[in-house]
C-alpha cells in the first residue's frame, strides 16, 4: 500500500516549523506508528516521536492526525490514506513542542500532581496484611477512570485549556474522580473543595471533545460531571459553576424551561448582576434574551419532571455512560427549596 504523509517537523533549537512529505510503501494492516517507524529506520533517522508498547497501553504516541488527536499505534493507516489523501501528522496540542512530534508533558504531570493523585485510605480499606471485602458494585464507580493511560489526547483537544491554560483539565480531573469515587478514599470532602476552586471542575465548557477522542473510552467529561454532582451533594457549591448547574435543574423542575434572565442573578449573585444591567438591557432590546416577566413556563411540566426522575435514578456509574446529575439532584431539591419557595403550582 502506498502511503503519503505530511509530518510536522520542528527544529528544537530555532523553533522553526515546516511540513515534510514522506512517501512510503507498507503492508495493508500497517498502523500510523508503523509508518513513523519506517521513516525513522529507512528515510530520516532524525524524526523524533515517542513510542513503546505499540498496542495502545503505554500512552506514548498520541499525535494529531489532520487535527484530530489519536494514538498512532491504534490508527490503521489504510483508512487515512483512502482515495489518495495525504494526512498531516502534528504534535498534540496544549503542550509545548520539544521537537517534531514530541511535546513536553511536564505541565500535564504538574496538574495531575495538584490533585493529590493517591489514595488516602479510610476505614473501608482495612489494615495492612489483611483483606477487607468491598462489594464490587461500589468499585465500579471508578473502573472506567482507572483505564486512563496518561496519553494526553484529551488535553490536546480541550478548548478550555487553550483559553485558560491553568485549568486542571480532563486528564487530571479523571484522576481526581478515580479517587473521589473510590469507596476506600477518606479525603473526599477536602478533595472536592480543592477541585471546586478557580481552574477546577467548573471551568470545563462541556464541549465533550475529550470524551470523543479518548482512546481508552475513559470519558473524562463524565468524570468531571460526577465530580460536580458530588461537590453539590456535599454542599460544596459556592462556585458560580455549581450555582449555574443548580439553577438549570431548579428552573427546569419548576417551570419546565430554562429561565435565562434569572440564571444570571442566580449564578453571579445580585451585586455582581447589577454591573451586568446595561448588557442585559442591550440583550433584551435586541431580542437576545427573554424578559424576566411574565415567567417562562412550559405548557406541560411532565416531560421535564420525568427527565429529572430518570437522571435522579441513576447510580454513580450513570445510565448509558452519560452522567449528568445523579444523586446530587436529590439533594438539590432540599438545598433549593428553603430559599426558593417556587412550588410546583406557582404560576
Amino acid at each position, binding site marked *: 500500500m502506498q502511503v503519503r504523509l505530511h509530518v510536522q517537523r520542528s527544529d*528544537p*533549537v530555532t523553533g522553526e516549523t515546516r511540513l515534510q512529505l514522506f512517501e512510503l510503501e507498507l503492508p495493508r*494492516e500497517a*498502523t500510523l506508528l508503523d509508518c513513523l517507524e519506517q521513516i*525513522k*529506520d*529507512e528515510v*530520516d*533517522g*532524525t524524526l*523524533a*516521536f*515517542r*513510542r*513503546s*508498547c*505499540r*498496542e*495502545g*497501553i*503505554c*500512552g*506514548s504516541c498520541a499525535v494529531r492526525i489532520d487535527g484530530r488527536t489519536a494514538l498512532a499505534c*491504534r490508527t490503521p493507516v489504510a483508512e487515512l490514506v483512502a482515495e489518495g489523501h495525504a494526512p498531516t501528522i502534528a504534535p498534540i496540542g496544549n503542550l*509545548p513542542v*520539544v*521537537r*517534531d512530534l*514530541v511535546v*513536553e*508533558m*511536564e505541565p500535564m504531570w504538574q496538574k*495531575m*500532581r495538584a490533585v493529590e*493523585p*493517591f*489514595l488516602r*485510605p479510610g476505614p473501608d*480499606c*482495612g*489494615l*495492612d*496484611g489483611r*483483606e477487607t*471485602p*468491598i*462489594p*464490587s458494585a461500589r*468499585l465500579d464507580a*471508578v*473502573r472506567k477512570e*482507572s*483505564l*486512563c*493511560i*496518561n496519553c494526553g489526547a484529551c488535553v490536546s483537544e480541550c478548548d478550555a485549556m487553550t483559553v485558560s491554560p491553568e485549568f486542571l483539565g480532563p486528564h487530571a480531573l479523571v484522576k481526581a474522580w478515580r*479517587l473521589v469515587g*473510590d469507596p*476506600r*478514599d477518606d479525603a473526599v470532602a477536602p478533595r472536592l473543595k480543592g477541585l471546586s476552586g478557580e481552574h477546577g471542575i467548573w471551568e470545563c465548557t462541556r464541549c465533550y471533545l475529550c470524551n470523543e477522542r479518548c482512546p481508552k473510552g475513559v470519558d473524562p467529561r463524565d468524570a468531571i460531571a460526577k465530580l460536580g454532582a458530588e461537590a453539590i451533594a456535599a454542599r460544596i457549591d459556592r462556585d458560580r459553576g455549581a450555582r449555574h448547574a443548580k439553577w438549570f435543574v431548579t428552573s427546569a423542575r419548576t417551570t419546565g424551561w430554562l429561565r435565562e434572565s434569572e440564571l444570571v442573578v442566580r449564578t453571579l449573585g445580585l451585586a455582581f448582576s447589577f454591573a451586568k444591567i446595561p448588557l442585559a438591557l442591550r440583550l433584551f432590546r435586541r431580542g437576545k434574551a427573554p424578559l424576566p416577566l411574565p415567567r417562562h413556563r412550559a405548557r406541560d411540566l411532565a416531560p421535564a419532571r420525568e427527565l429529572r426522575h430518570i437522571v435522579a435514578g441513576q447510580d454513580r456509574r450513570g445510565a448509558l455512560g452519560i452522567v449528568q446529575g445523579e444523586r446530587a439532584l436529590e439533594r438539590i431539591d432540599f438545598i433549593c427549596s428553603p430559599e426558593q419557595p417556587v412550588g410546583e403550582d406557582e404560576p
Partner: protein
Amino acid sequence: MYGPEDVESSHDVLVIGAGCAGMRAAIEAHDAGADVALVSKLHPTRSHSGAARGGINAALGNAGEDSPERHAADTVKGSDYLGDQDAIELFCAEAPGDIYQLERWGALFDRDDEGRLAQRAFGGAGAPRTVHAADVSGHVLLQVLYEQLLAREIRVYEEYFAWRLVVGATGCDGVLAWDLARGGVRALAAKAVILATGGSGRVYCGSTNAHACTGDGMAMALRAGLPLEDLEFVQFHPTTLVPSGLLVTEAVRGEGGLLLNAKGERFMRRYAPEAMELASRDVVARAEQTEIDEGRDVNGSLLLDMRHFGREKMIERFHGTRDLALTYAGIDPLEQPIPVRPGAHYHMGGVATDVDGRSEIENVFAAGEVACVSLHGANRLGGNSLMETIVFGRRAGRAAAEQALKRSGSAGLAPSARVDGERELARLLERHQGERPSRIRDELGASMHENFGVFREEGGMRRQLELLENLRERYRHVLVDDRGEIFNSDLVQALELGYQLDLAVCMVSAGLERRESRGAHSRPKDFPARDDENFLKHSLVRWSNDWLDLSWKPVTITKWQPQRRTY
C-alpha cells in the same frame, strides 16, 4: 520548555528502571529512610509492566483451597526443577501480604460475589490463584505504584537513558546516563544501584515485548563484569497474534478458549490430555510449533477459538482482546477464531542475584525481569512475574537502602567517567558513514527466532553465533543519522542495539552448552530429554576482556526432588 538540569547529582539509592519492579523498589528504599531517585528512559507509566493483562499470583485461597506451599510446589514444577526452592518458598509465603498492601494503596482488583479479591486459574497452577483487574492487571499495578511514588515525592530522572554502570575499587559509584529530552551526558552518583530495566524480548522479531524492552540492564551488568544466569531460557508465549506478535492473554484459555489446528482438531489432547489448553506455556508453545513444523497450521498459525464465549462475556471480560484482534488483524473473535503462534515473551534469565536482589558486586542490586533470583528456573508460570516485581522489588529496595545507609560519606563519581562517556558518544555521533541500526536489528531478530526459538539444535546455534559475530562486526560501523542533542532517540536506539547483540551472544552460548531439554530450552533433535545428572544447575555467563566465560552454579533444593514433569 525543559529547564536546565544538573550535570551531576548524588543519591543514596539509584533505581534504574521505573516499571513495577523499579517503582516498588524505590518506594521501599524511601520508606527505609534512604534518599532515592529513579532513572528511566520512559515516563514510569509508559513501562511495559502496563501491558501485563492476565494478573498476579498469590495463594490467598479466595476461590478455592490454596496455600503458599501449593503455590511453591506448582512453581517448582513449572520451573522444571531449575528454580531455587529457598527463593520460591519465600516468594510464595510473602506474596499474599504484598497483595493486601497493593489493595490498601488503591489497586483496583476484581472482586468476587462476597466482595473479596477474585482469583482465576492460570496455566500450570493447581488452584485459582491469579488476582486480576479485568484484562488490564499490569496497567492497574503500574498506576497505583506511580501514585505511591508521587505520594512520597520521589525524584524521577525521566527520559534518561542509563547506559553505563561505573564500577570502581569499592563497588559501584553510580551510572552514566544520556538525557534524552535535553541532550547531554549526566553523571548520577549513588551508594547503591538497583537495576530494574525489565526484559529483553526485542532480541527477537515477533515478540510480545515493547520496543523499549532491549535488555539494557542485563547488558550493562555484563559489561560491569557481573555474571548473567540462565540466559538460555526464553519463554515463548503460545498465543501471540499473527502477524503483529501482540499477546493474546492466557486468560482467554483460562476461561475456556480452545486451540485448534488446520483440521479443526483440539490438538492439545495429544500433548497434555488432562490440562489441555491450560498446560504450562512451554508445553503449549511446543505443541503448536510441532503442529506448525508438521504442516497442520493455517499459514504459519494455529487458531484460538473464543466464539462460544458469547457477546456478553466477550465484551465484559475480553473487550481488550477483541479490540486487539479487530485493530491489528482485522478479525472479530465473536465471528472467527484468531490466528496465533508462539512468540518470544519472557526472559527467565538475567542478572544473578540472591533473595535480596544482591548481585556479585555488593552495592549493585537487581529486581524484576532483569534479574534471575532464580524464581522461574527454566520456565515461568503466568502471573508469577508481576508478583516477582513486587516481592523482590520490595526486598531489593530494603536491602539497597540498608546497604547505602551503612556506607559513610556521600556518593561521588570521578569526573573522568563522564568525560570518557562524552568522548565515546561524540565519536559515535561524528561517524558519517556506516550502516543504519534498523537493518542489523531486523536481521538479529529474524535469525534469533529461527535459530534460537522454541526448538534449538547444535547446528543452528553454531550458525547463529557466526551470524552474531558478523552482526557485531557491522555494528562497529553503525550510523546514527541524528546528530542533534535534543530528543535524539536515534542515538538511544543505536546504543540499545549494542546491548541486544551482546546479550544474544551470551544467550546462544549458554544454550549451546546446555546439552539437554528443560523447560523453555528444547532440543528435540540432539538432546530431547532432561538430564538432571549433568544439568540440574544454573548457567552463568561473564564477559571478561572480550572473552565469554561460561560456568555453572548448583540449584538450591529444599523439599521437592526433581520428578518427571507432566500436565
